[in-house]
């Protein structure tokens, strides 16, 4: 068994683009679910919007990269408004069902044959990240701490931009949650009628949370697209949203650092276990499963982990038991 390989893959995953993407997705969910109590089950849709906005703008229409970024942010705002208007006045589970449906709509639209001239169908789109990597300040070469961590200069650029986005989003939320604005959100999470009776426009605050969370999610989509230099519709399935929830709950909802630590740990563990098992199978240490089944076992562990977390430690790593956001009522 190649332990260096196992550790190296795990550590790289823990700080790599996957960790960034899921951290951003979970930070968005933290605003919505963690602080405000809104069940957005369509975060994958927001990531898809971000990713496809860049891809379509650059690859299909040949327009500038930053225009794509702007369009992505704008579309995320629009999508949040569109979802919020019919559902934010209704019970929590309606929002869950409508958002999950909306994310599926986004995925089905971008993968459709009829629109494949624009979105590339099930193949998705490539060749749009050129101008992003043209801005890369890192000269070609290997970076990191051999033999464990090693990234090429392209990855370094994505990671730098990605972690800066994570830090920025977290800082803004840190300030916002300390302010009276954040106080209103936390109060809504507990009892929106009480907040309404105190003269706060609950609908507007929920909408703001939905928009802010969605915009942060779409930034995750940017990193998703840029880190792979390709987008494919089926990467944005509902499971992405559910993993982001797992990440959030693992780290601790309603905590600024929760999603970040949750995401790093999630990917570290997932890849460690996955690679570890693969290596064990390849080296003959484990004989009763095949390499192909390792992926399924990994997924099972995610599901099992999510269940056990909610049963035994719903506040995650960082949460305060007295102030867990889940089920305020």
């Amino acid at each position: 068994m190649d332990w260096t390989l196992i550790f190296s893959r795990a550590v790289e995953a823990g700080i790599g683009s996957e960790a960034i993407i899921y951290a951003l997705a979970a930070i968005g969910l933290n605003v919505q679910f963690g602080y405000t109590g809104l069940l957005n089950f369509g975060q994958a849709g927001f990531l898809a919007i971000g990713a496809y906005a860049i891809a379509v703008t650059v690859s299909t229409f040949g327009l500038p990269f930053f225009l794509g970024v702007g369009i992505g942010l704008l579309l995320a705002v629009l999508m949040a408004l569109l979802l919020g208007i019919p559902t934010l006045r209704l019970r929590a589970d309606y929002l869950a069902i409508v958002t999950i449906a909306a994310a599926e709509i986004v995925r089905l639209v971008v993968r459709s044959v009829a629109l494949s001239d624009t979105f590339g169908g099930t193949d998705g789109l490539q060749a749009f990240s050129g101008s992003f990597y043209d801005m890369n300040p890192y000269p070609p070469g290997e970076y990191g701490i051999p033999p464990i961590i090693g990234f090429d200069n392209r990855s370094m650029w994505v990671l730098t931009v990605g972690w800066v986005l994570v830090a920025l989003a977290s800082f803004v939320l840190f300030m916002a949650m300390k302010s009276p604005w954040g106080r209103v959100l936390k109060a809504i999470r507990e009892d929106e009628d009480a907040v309404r009776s105190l003269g706060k426009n609950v609908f507007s605050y929920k909408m703001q949370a939905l928009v802010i969370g969605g915009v942060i999610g779409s930034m995750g989509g940017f990193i998703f697209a840029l880190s792979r230099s390709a987008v494919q519709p089926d990467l944005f399935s509902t499971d992405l949203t559910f993993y982001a929830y797992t990440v959030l709950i693992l780290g601790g909802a309603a905590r600024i650092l929760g999603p970040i630590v949750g995401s790093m740990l999630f990917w570290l563990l997932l890849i460690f276990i996955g690679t570890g098992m693969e290596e064990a199978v390849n080296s003959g240490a484990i004989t009763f499963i095949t390499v192909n089944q390792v992926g399924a076992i990994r997924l099972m562990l995610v599901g099992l982990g999510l269940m056990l977390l909610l049963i035994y430690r719903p506040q995650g790593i960082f949460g305060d038991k007295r102030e867990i956001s889940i089920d305020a009522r």
Partner: protein
Amino acid sequence: MHAESLPAGKAAALKAFEGMAAEPGVPKPDPILVVDNVVRRFGGLTAVNVNHVEIQRGSITALIGPNGAGKTTFFNQLTGFDTADEGQWTFNGQAMNGVSAYKVARKGMVRTFQLTKALSKLTVIENMRLGAQAQKGENFFRGLIPGLWRGQEDEITLQAEDLLQRFKLDAKRDDFAGSLSGGQRKLLEMARALMGNPELVMLDEPMAGVNPALTQSLLGHVKNLRELGMTVLFVEHDMDMVRDISDWVIVMAQGEVIAEGPPDSVMSDERVVDAYLGAHHDAPLSAEEEERQLHEAEAELDKESTE
């Protein structure tokens, strides 16, 4: 009534009600709230059907009625928490029907809930701060720059601490509201509602579940609100309390206002007696009655066992 000198607010209120006809829908000299033809139906049940009612400014008005009379539903209509099927009402002369709940509160008409809604995972002081109106820091962008709202926050905190002291909650300042007792929560909810400096305070059963010792101090607070120039409309089942603090009583039964009048005389109104007796069919059985039923049941059992 009372020989000793009355507080100014009480005296003014009593003067306003002097010689007023004890009739449902009677006009008041200076109404803060005027309600016309409010109807709310749930399927076949008409929960509220109020023809006309006025609330006198600066008074303490009690809204009483048997369980299920529609008092809470009536509150919900007036404060925008539920949409009335028909009707209109004005607050300070402004039409309020169809106005959403938060706007109603901002206009100065604040309510509390029958089932307390303390925000239990916020601390007591945060609960209080939330009640303040027009906070600069409640805007997302301004909230990001503490310098813009710190000053106002400090003022709000002072006001909150003052209120907490009056409601004897200052010792609990930094506890989670969830750790308070039921009565303390009622107090907190009332104090929090006052943070917005409302003109009309609508309390849905503020004394329910509060222990008798605390009740007295709560009553004091309510009376004090009137002295501060506020108008109070409250729902209550305890008649002694109603008699003690209210200047005027409105009686609801089966959704309608069936009587109005001063607390001393309205209880003897025969419509009120009917309404309450009608609703009290399942009052405790008398001793003889109980005995008789027991015998019947035993006889039945005997019969069964011999068969």
